[in-house]
């Protein structure tokens, strides 16, 4: 890439190592995204659970 | 001792039953006759063979000698018929700690090929004092609460014959009263029951009894 004109196809080709390089970067991306998304989902789940518990408590207080 | 006032149909009958464990003769020539609507208490000191007898009655244990008859036929010949109309609750919990109360009851009913609408299960749970615990994993319940799941199962199974080994284990005073009332209702509905217990159980009705062991 040095000096010569930049070409996307050449870049994507990675000198013949495209599979290896791009799957590495792809996996890294997946890992990053997963690690961001999964705690967010987890957080929703925890909050929902606490809310449910609060509601259950309120209900049982009403009935008793 | 089947001279109760109930109908004369004999449900379960044993002939010359004999049980030996570890060289010790527990009982011999035991003949029981349980008719419809009869409630039978098996009495005896610790180690007299009550549990062994109940397991023999269920076909879970082989007697040394003698026969168990269900409506006149040997139980090993009419197994499916017999099992469809009896229920046994023993010393052991039969409860999966990882399943919730509801799931436990459902899967117990499943083994009997029964199912029950959710309202009915809820009603049963309320009756045994477990309402609100239906989605709690059973391992988080105390020993008495776990026994109560079995009581709910007993209620829902609607079988004619109950065989209960120490149904009062781990139950508190209310629990004992509950079992007593359950037995009364069961009897009024025409069901029969055989049970053991060391607590004095007072049922306001006739009860037959068999005493094991002249032992120790």
């Amino acid at each position, binding site marked *: 890439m040095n000096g010569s004109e930049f070409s996307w196809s050449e870049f994507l080709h990675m000198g013949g190592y495209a599979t290896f390089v791009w799957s590495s970067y792809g996996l890294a991306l997946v890992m990053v995204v997963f690690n961001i998304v999964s705690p967010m989902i987890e957080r929703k789940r925890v909050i929902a659970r606490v809310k449910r518990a609060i509601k259950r408590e309120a209900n049982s207080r009403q009935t008793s | 001792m089947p001279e109760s006032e109930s109908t004369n149909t004999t449900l379960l009958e044993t002939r010359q039953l004999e049980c030996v464990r570890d060289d010790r003769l527990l009982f011999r020539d035991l003949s029981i006759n349980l008719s419809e609507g009869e409630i039978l208490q098996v009495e005896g000191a610790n180690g007299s063979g009550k549990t062994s007898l109940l*397991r023999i009655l*269920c076909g879970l*244990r082989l007697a040394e000698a003698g026969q168990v008859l269900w409506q006149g036929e040997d139980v090993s010949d009419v197994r499916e*018929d017999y099992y469809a109309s009896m229920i046994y609750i*023993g010393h052991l*919990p*039969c409860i999966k700690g*990882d399943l919730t109360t509801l799931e436990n009851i459902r899967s117990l009913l*499943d*083994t009997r090929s029964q199912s029950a609408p959710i309202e009915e299960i809820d009603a049963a749970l309320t009756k045994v004092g477990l309402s609100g615990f239906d989605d709690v994993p059973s391992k988080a319940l105390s020993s008495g609460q776990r026994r109560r799941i079995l009581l709910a199962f007993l209620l829902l199974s609607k079988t004619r014959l109950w065989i209960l080994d120490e149904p009062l284990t781990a139950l508190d005073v209310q629990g004992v009263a509950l079992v007593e009332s359950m037995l009364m209702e069961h009897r009024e509905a025409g069901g029969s029951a055989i049970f053991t217990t060391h607590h004095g159980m007072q049922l306001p009705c006739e009860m037959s009894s068999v005493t094991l062991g002249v032992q120790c």
Partner: protein
Amino acid sequence: MLKAFYHLLARDLRLAFRSRHELANPLIFFVLVVTLFPLAVSPSAEVLRVMAPGVIWVSALLSVLLSLDRLFKQDYEDGSLDQLMLSPNPLVILVLAKVCAHWLLTGLPLVLVAPLLAMFMYVPDEAIGVLMLSLLLGTPVLSLVGAIGVSLTVAVNRGGVLLSLIILPLYIPILIFGANAVDVASDGMSVRGQMLFLGAVLALALSLAPLATAVALRITASR
């Protein structure tokens, strides 16, 4: 009856999924044991290639063996097994459901992960398909035959090693044919004979083992 089968299968699967870690365990054990060999024997490709089919099969076998416990042990101890035996449904059907669940939870994952391990141990690509097929035919037999062994030893506490003593000899034919098939396939030869054998044994086990297990359970339940 089909319903009884389905309900029990569903219950066992649900129980397994409830404790997630347990689900993964036989698989991890398999991977770990396979990993021990390069460490203990030699990391060189030539040695590993020769050993690989045998090592993978032995590890799969041990992994199934150790997970057999969960077939009946717990049910026996907590009394659920009594309830199953008092079910109006034929015990054979219930046994089959439990074995099915067991295979889905242990055998199948092994089949799926084996190719990866084979690659790590330099098994040639053309033999990897055969490895999977041989495991696919073999692991259900391991579960089925294992069930007989467990049902016989369920009343023995700490019966784990007794169990291996009883079952391992029965596993040996499967092991020999399974490992041999992979070996032969690595050399590029046909493995039709081995596969037919494994298939026949599977058919045999499927038809007889549940019966034997049901009988064994009735015997050992007597306590």
